[in-house]
């Protein structure tokens, strides 16, 4: 019951953002948070649920953005361009997965890093296709059902709709038998194999699911900025997405969203007031590791419970529980 109330309040808050946030500039920031949150949620499928740390997801994000930008700039309609972009993202994810799943752990990380860097190199150097570092300008935003997304508020609602879809998809995924078996491959891969599960296939499908949502975020990014350049698939973007997932709390639903909000707000809003925002962002990451090594969201939940039970006199019990910290 309490959960339902919180959920309704959260939805209400999200739905009314353009009314209480005031300036269109902040509505745009909210849209950006949602876009990055979708990427982080997608990445979280691998990092949090499959235990596979990818440093190449900006590559997937970028492929979708480039495909849509290239097609729209070439005169295609937005809908067919988006469909082709999504098909491409599935195909690219499949290639990524086949190569990267040769390894786990640091090997997986390095292969995804190499793939991301290769895509970046291609975007930079295959000028005939990508325009090189001059990038591709996208002449217009899409107009689904005839509604123009040119202005900040309609674009926000469009992004919010996609975001909610992603959240629901993630929630369903985690609760599904497939989500459970994916976690099995993370914690006990050998036992899963012994039980007759095809560990590779489970990871492969998880990669596709993860890549798909990263691609969706890439599409939104392309519509939002109406500009794509190699910068979107640089290593820095991949690292940023990973930092969002981990700082918010990997393996949780809210964690990646909180992480995305943290990074976007620091980069775009706090940077207007604090000249050394980059230092501060790094310091926040370090502080998170010191005080909430499990991430912002699970850490806050733990502290909240601790404080709550302290009020009720059960602090000792909560402290004992604090160690495991996995709120999934």
């Amino acid at each position, binding site marked *: 019951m309490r959960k339902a109330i919180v959920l309704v309040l959260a939805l209400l808050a999200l739905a009314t953002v353009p009314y209480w946030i005031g300036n269109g500039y902040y509505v745009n920031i909210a849209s950006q948070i949602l876009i990055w949150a979708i990427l982080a949620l997608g990445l979280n499928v691998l990092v949090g649920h499959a235990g596979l740390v990818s440093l190449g997801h900006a590559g997937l994000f970028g492929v979708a953005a480039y495909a849509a930008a290239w097609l729209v700039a070439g005169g295609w309609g937005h809908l067919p361009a988006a469909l082709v972009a999504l098909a491409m993202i599935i195909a690219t994810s499949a290639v990524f997965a086949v190569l990267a799943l040769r390894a786990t752990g640091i090997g997986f990380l390095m292969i995804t890093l190499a793939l991301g860097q290769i895509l970046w190199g291609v975007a930079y150097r295959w000028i005939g296709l990508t325009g090189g*570092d001059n990038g591709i300008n996208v002449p217009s935003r899409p107009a689904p059902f005839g509604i123009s997304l040119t202005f900040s508020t309609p674009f926000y609602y469009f992004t919010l709709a996609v975001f909610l879809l992603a959240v629901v998809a993630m929630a369903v995924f985690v609760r599904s038998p497939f989500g459970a078996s994916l976690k099995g491959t993370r914690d006990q891969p050998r036992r899963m194999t012994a039980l007759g599960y095809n560990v590779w296939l489970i990871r492969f499908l998880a990669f596709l699911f993860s890549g798909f949502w990263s691609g969706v975020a890439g599409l939104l990014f392309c519509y939002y900025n109406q*500009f794509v350049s190699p910068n979107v698939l640089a290593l820095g973007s991949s690292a940023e997405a990973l930092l969002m997932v981990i700082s918010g709390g990997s393996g949780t639903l809210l964690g990646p969203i909180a992480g995305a909000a943290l990074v976007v707000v620091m980069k775009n809003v706090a940077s207007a007031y604090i000249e050394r925002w980059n230092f501060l962002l790094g310091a926040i990451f370090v502080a998170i590791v010191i005080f909430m090594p499990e991430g912002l969201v699970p850490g806050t939940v733990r502290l909240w419970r601790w404080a709550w039970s302290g009020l009720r006199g059960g602090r000792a019990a909560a402290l004992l529980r604090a160690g495991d910290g996995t709120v999934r």
Partner: protein
Amino acid sequence: MAWTVDRRKFLWGTALATALPWAPALAQSQPVRIGLLTVKTGPLAQGGIQMEQGITVFLKQKNNTLAGRKVELISADTGGNPAGAKTKAQELIERDHVDFIVGPLAAFELLAITDYIQQAKVPMLSLAAADDMTQRKPNAYFVRASATSSQCCHPLGDYAAKEMKLKRVATINEDFAFGYEQVGGFQRVFEDEGGRIVKKLWTPIATPDYTPYLAQISDVDGVWNGFAGSNPIKFNQQYAELGLKSKYPVIGGWTAYDDALLKSFGDDAVGAISAAWYSSDLDTPSNKRFVADMVREYGNIPGGYAAGCYINGMCIEAALGKTGGKTDDKAKLIEALRAVSLTDTPRGAFHFDHLGNVVGNVFIRRLERKGGKLVNTIVKTYPNVSQFWTYDEKQYLAQPVYSRDYPPLKS
């Protein structure tokens, strides 16, 4: 930053102004707001910090008053990437309601926001050099008082062929648009004057060791380079180390031998010939004042990034003078800006062409050691250099923009 507005105060001010019924009257007495899109973090910060210094020095000299109106500078850090530039441009325009935008620094930042600026109708004065911004894809709200990528390279091609009497030149440059346009401009004029480009080498932006490229240079009269950022230091060090400096003289673009880099160079760079639209060596009253103030305030000999923003400040002052300090009619404002024609500036006299690009001096300099200090000494001045050099504008624009393969190497 004493000259940056306290944002919070500023926001309250704006909120009050819009909330109160007498807002229009109040708006008249509001200060002119200049938004600076710059880079203060990450690898591009070097140029970005100098940009802020340049315009800050200008506003300080003017006591923060231009054409009788108070001026506020709001500076925004894009982080040096296109998406950041877009967000920060939105911040300056939609939240802070700036009247002018100075910046951004890099071409890819500029290209990411050009459509948006055109829609928002806010006059923008940028240092970013992308040729097509004032050529094949012009923006009606844009002026550029610095130069296109190729603008200084045209006269350098002329100088290399006619005065240095070079015949065969190899080029080496970063593998990106700014490099292509620089090399293209140099190649076109140099070859039209009878010279010949025999090899074009393109290096990735982050290249720890240039040796694999430098090893391929042989049988030439000179080597062109147009590196930017911190790469010129690394390049000249390695070029000298491999013994090439004594064999082939080096010529280069303005970013490669910018005056602000002089304190970082060692003797490796001495003797380099470069073409630049600004030289701290120039003897004009306003340049003397500018250089003196830069040295006093920041201990820095200014280069193009600081000078460009200082000159942008002068353009804004001149434009405001024409509109009587009014900024509400943006069409009139950009019209006034493009009509600006100044005689005493740190780069000498200049005006804008009908596409918003500068027509002004280009200096050929030689890097020398004088009294223990490195200086770029002006050896020749090309006055009134247009972005089209001496070519016919129509014919020039009918050709494709300079690229990796255009003009092609003659075989």
